[in-house]
């Protein structure tokens, strides 16, 4: 990946600058020309209907799916430079919960980038992982195999792993999906703590009721950016209707035609 000079409209202060990002899956574009700047020290919700490209946006930022066009900068730097400052919490379904690892083992994985290839996990890293596990109230479950934890407890272990990464920018894919009220509260407290430390967290979020309460910025997505900005300004009824109110039939049909490899 080559470093592209930052466009003048994007600030080097911004932990995440997305410029003209288009992502295609099987040649069918699923994200069109995304333009977005995440402000430093903010909590950003990505909202939009199913199939709007929310997870895809995160994966494209992290280089997990290729971009057809555009570029992404982190603090004005390329992903390869900034990688160790970026944390990621994938969707719960992306993980093999039957895998023989304990809660502590999972949290230690958050330290792997700092540990590096080939090396074992030193006591210092293990202690850092334990501290993260304690911070989400899961210290007592450190030796429990992860399949034997409840959904909410598993999500907290994931959160502890994110904390153990000690990143400055986090991508979390639906951290609130299927958790109990106590875990939801623990996650929110953790997000606020991260923000107060000057870090930025970007979450795919489904519960529109809690967007105003939990997030100070919002990115409303439906194949393209419908609206983005401070929650108070951008999260309006009108923008919600534009985001959720029906698909863009013309754009959708054109995408299908492109996927078939020619004009319909």
């Amino acid at each position, binding site marked *: 990946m080559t470093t592209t000079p930052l466009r003048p409209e994007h600030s080097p202060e911004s932990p995440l600058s997305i410029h003209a990002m288009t992502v295609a899956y099987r040649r069918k574009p699923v994200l069109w020309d995304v333009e977005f700047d995440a402000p430093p020290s903010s909590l950003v919700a990505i909202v939009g209907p199913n199939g709007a490209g929310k997870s895809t946006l995160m*994966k494209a930022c*992290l*280089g*997990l799916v290729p971009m057809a066009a555009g570029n992404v900068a982190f603090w004005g730097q390329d992903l390869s430079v900034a*990688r160790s400052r*970026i944390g*990621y919490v*994938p969707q719960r379904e*992306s*993980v*093999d919960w039957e*895998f*023989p*690892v*304990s809660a502590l*083992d*999972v949290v230690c*994985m958050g330290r*792997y*980038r700092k*540990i590096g*290839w*080939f*090396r*074992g*996990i030193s006591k210092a890293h293990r202690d850092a992982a334990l501290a993260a596990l304690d911070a989400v109230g899961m210290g007592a479950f450190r030796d429990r*195999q992860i*399949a*034997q934890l*409840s959904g909410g407890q598993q999500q907290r272990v994931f959160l502890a792993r994110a904390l153990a990464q000690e990143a400055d920018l986090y*991508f979390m894919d639906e951290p609130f999906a299927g958790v109990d009220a106590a875990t939801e509260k623990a996650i929110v407290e953790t997000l606020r703590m991260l923000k107060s430390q000057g870090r930025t967290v970007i979450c795919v979020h489904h519960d529109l009721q809690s967007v105003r309460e939990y997030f100070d910025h919002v990115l409303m997505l439906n194949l393209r950016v419908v609206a983005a900005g401070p929650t108070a300004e951008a999260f309006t009824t009108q923008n919600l209707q534009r985001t959720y109110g029906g698909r863009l039939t013309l754009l959708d049909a054109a995408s299908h035609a492109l996927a078939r490899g020619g004009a319909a």
Partner: protein
Amino acid sequence: MTLERFLHFASVDGAALLAATLSALVCGMLGNWLVLRRTSLMGDAISHSVLPGIVGAFLVTGTRAPVPMFVGAIIAALLTVAVTQAVRRLARVDMGAAMGVTFASFFAFGVLLIEQASARQVDLDPDCVLYGSLETLFWFPPANPRDWLSLSTLALLPTPVKTLLVVTVVSAIVLRLLRKELALASFDAPLAAALGFRPALLGAILMTLTAAATIASFEAVGSILVVAMLVCPAAAARLWTDRLRTQTRLSAAFAVLSAILGYLLAATAPRWLGTTHALGAAGTMATTAGAILTISIVAGPTHGLVARVLRRRELALRVAREDALGALFRMLESGTDRASEQLLVAAVGPRGIAEARRRGEIETANGLVRLTPTGVAEAQAIIRSHRLWETYLVEEAGLAADHVHESAERLEHVREVAPEVPRALDPQGKPIPKPTS
């Protein structure tokens, strides 16, 4: 055992046993990761589809030297992966179907090549591919035991054993170095990619090692044993532990155990069976691996059948005891301190009462039962749980107050979670006992 007999054993059986053990060990180590990554079918596929590569290399070079065979097999293995991906994408079928089609076709093509070759009097035998030829491995160690561990003695080992030794050592080192990386990529591939740990590269390394192990094992033990050892020991180990380190060690240990027991079985079973037919060692080893897996399925401590039956019975007994205590508590709620045992048995059956008595929670005298102090505490906790659940079901889940008793009767036995609804009375107006510390 005299030195002479040992030397005899070493030259007749030593090399064969060593080859079988090394082959099982390397397959057990690699299979551990294939099983954990749920890609054991890929190991199966590769171990079959390298055949045309091996035969092709043999036909081109005319030797059975390991290096050309390895090159041929690696090409075949890479082709398998590429063709599988292509079939999956172009035919839009799932991974399993794509693999099945690919490796069956490759293997069939390999057999076809062998038959073509043997028609031209080339020394290749399809049976040998399946079962190997352990019987043809001999080793002549120096007479002086002090020379056995020298490098020149190692050099005297038959070529298949030397190849296996190299592949086993290399695999062990690579797997040890990449243990944490493989664990991350297997458990959570997206995070591994996001952290820059290249899960696709790790998968490719594993596949390359599997191909190498297959080729190294082929000549000595054949493909049946390879497939068995890639799957059985790891699957068996998974039934004994939830720890990665233990899983890794057990997987290797079960593989070695299968090899040694299987070899001994092949040597001694004809005598027990009273026949003179020799048993193929590769077959008895694969069977032993299968037997270890069967034993694990039955007797494994956490996931085994026996353990599951015992756990279910233990739970049933606890539920019966708690129901007896709860029923007695309710009978005594009117203010008496004893109740008729007959009535209690009629209500909950004798099993739970006997268990509660055994644990000193109730006492019987003259056909009357009463709760002991520990019994009172236990019964209060159960009734509290029951009435809290009733309250929860009415207030939170919105069920009708006269419909919740049956559900609460089941939920009261759950220990891990309890509803926290600060109330003094349940929906029927009965008091909820205070928590006992």
